[in-house]
């Protein structure tokens, strides 16, 4: 999985900084390629997904996988990180792979833990593999981290925006999301981000 070029200290650090940028500036598309390319894609996961797993998971956390090849991915992630598995509603990290069933992303969002008022940080981070992550798309983002508005394309299936809106309705509770694509581009949507359609009335969120 890791090639001999992958540096578990410095490559992880550089990738982490990019995710910090992405989470602080929702809609900013970051390129994880330099680090992800040093990982050999194994099994059904994208190497950016593996990179996120290596960066964030270890024996202290639990994860859940949504995929048609769950067992393989679970074994792989356990081997890489020693993290434990958990049910969808208890996991700290939920992976929704490209080959997850239809409606898999919505389902994952609905079931993921969103913390409570006392401990909103005890909520899941959902890592989603999508068709495409690109700048200047049809989603209009506003909120903390964004100067005015930012447009982004997140090529995910299904009515996940509605599911996300519902889940994040009661700030501070909610879930945070990281999207990656096969070209190692990533974008983050913390729970604070409001999403609307570029034009028109769909997915307008109340606050």
């Amino acid at each position, binding site marked *: 999985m890791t090639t001999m070029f992958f540096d578990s200290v410095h490559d992880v650090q550089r990738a982490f900084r990019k995710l910090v940028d992405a989470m602080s500036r929702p809609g900013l598309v970051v390129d994880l390629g330099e680090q992800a390319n040093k990982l050999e894609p194994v099994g059904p996961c994208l190497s950016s997904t593996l990179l996120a797993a290596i960066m964030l998971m270890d*024996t*202290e956390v639990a994860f859940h996988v949504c995929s048609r090849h769950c067992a393989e991915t679970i074994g792989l992630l356990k081997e890489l990180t020693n993290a434990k598995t958990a049910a969808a509603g208890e996991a700290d990290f939920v992976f929704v792979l490209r080959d997850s069933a239809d409606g898999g992303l919505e389902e994952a969002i609905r079931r993921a833990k969103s913390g409570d008022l006392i401990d909103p940080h005890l909520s899941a981070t959902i890592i989603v593999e999508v068709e495409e992550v690109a700048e200047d798309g049809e989603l209009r983002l506003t909120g903390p981290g964004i100067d005015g508005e930012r447009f982004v394309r997140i090529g995910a299936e299904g009515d996940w925006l509605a599911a996300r809106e519902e889940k994040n309705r009661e700030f501070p509770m909610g879930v945070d999301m990281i999207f990656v694509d096969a070209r190692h581009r990533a974008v983050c949507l913390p729970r604070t981000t409001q999403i609307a359609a570029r034009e028109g009335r769909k997915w307008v969120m109340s606050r």
Partner: protein
Amino acid sequence: MGYVAVKGGTAAIEESIRRLKYERLKKGTVLKVRDIEGGMRGLIDQIMSEGSLYDETLAALAIKQAEGSPEEAVFLLRAYRSTLPRKHYARTIRTERMAVERRISASFKDIPGGQILGATYDFTHRLIDFELMEETEETARAWLREFAESVGDAGSGGMNDGMAERGDASGGAAVFGGASGGSAGGGPDAGALDGLPKVSDYLRKEGLLPDCEEDNREPDDVTRRSLTFPSTRSQRLQVLTRGQTGAMTSLAYAVIRGYDVVHPTVGELRVGHLPVYIADPVGSEDSDAAGSQADPSGESDDDYYIGNVKATEAEMLIPVVTEKVRGKKELEFQIGYGLCYGQNETKAIAMGILDYCLEAKKPGVPTHDEEFVLLHIDSVESTGFISHLKMPHYVTFQSKLDSVRRTKRTTGNANDGERTGAAMEVIRS
């Protein structure tokens, strides 16, 4: 020719550090770590316990570097501990298996296995022994030879590897079972002092102590996940065992002196060595986290013995009035539990008292308030925050000055005394 910051700070610090080294060396004495390890058992035990790291040599080195300051030495150990990766988790240690060197009960005159005074300062007269100024390695060796002969031990028989060469005989030392045992003990009592029954077990059998179900849940680790409130028992015990000896002693003293009506008695105090085992690291695959044990009883014939730790265990018996059926009041005993690395008896007893108080949680009594106790007994945290007051606070102070000035201007008609009062209030807020 540009302006640059004067490097005053850097120079000052470097000189300060040199000055400190000078203080340590100026008398021309260089302490050997071996000497500290050999002769400062008390301080080493305290440092290991508060530092939460069992390694006598490292503790001795820290003590040397810190010139004997417990505050600094504990800090060194803890910071070092931060850098160490976790390789294994030990099997649950059962203190019934302690190789006991000292074991007493203040609650009962006669206990199964007997009262063993062992090595303690309790019965010494605290008269400074000026002859110690003339003590030499020769006189020490001669005394050790005599001592060994008198306990019927041919000079070998320590508990720790390597002690045999030093001729250190601990009379009645026990031998461990397990893969690689310690050096063999000679003497007539060898082997008799591990497996002594617990006083508390005897009390349970007699129905004087409520039965206690084993709680095999994985303990919380406050060094991995910070303490939260309400705390769990495992969090409390961990914070207590790492606590600063002085702080805990004071709080427990307050409890027994009258800040609460708690009359504890030492049910059993044990000092000795505990064997440490780990699961076979190459053995059966654990598909889940490295930390969890496949077998809750935590034992298997394939376990590896990796060494032993000296520890002090105190089980405090506290008589408590409880209300039973139909309002009938009964007197029963509850246990306060204390356990520390090294021979730290005062601390273990204090820990037992505080453990009970934090379980009982009587409202209104500060020593029963878990936040009050647990948040203030850590040596590194308390000394750190106090010492941070020495850091420059010019800007915060400047900000306060501004507030003080403005309030003085607006209360210009008030008399001086009032103004000063208001100004002091502002500084306090």
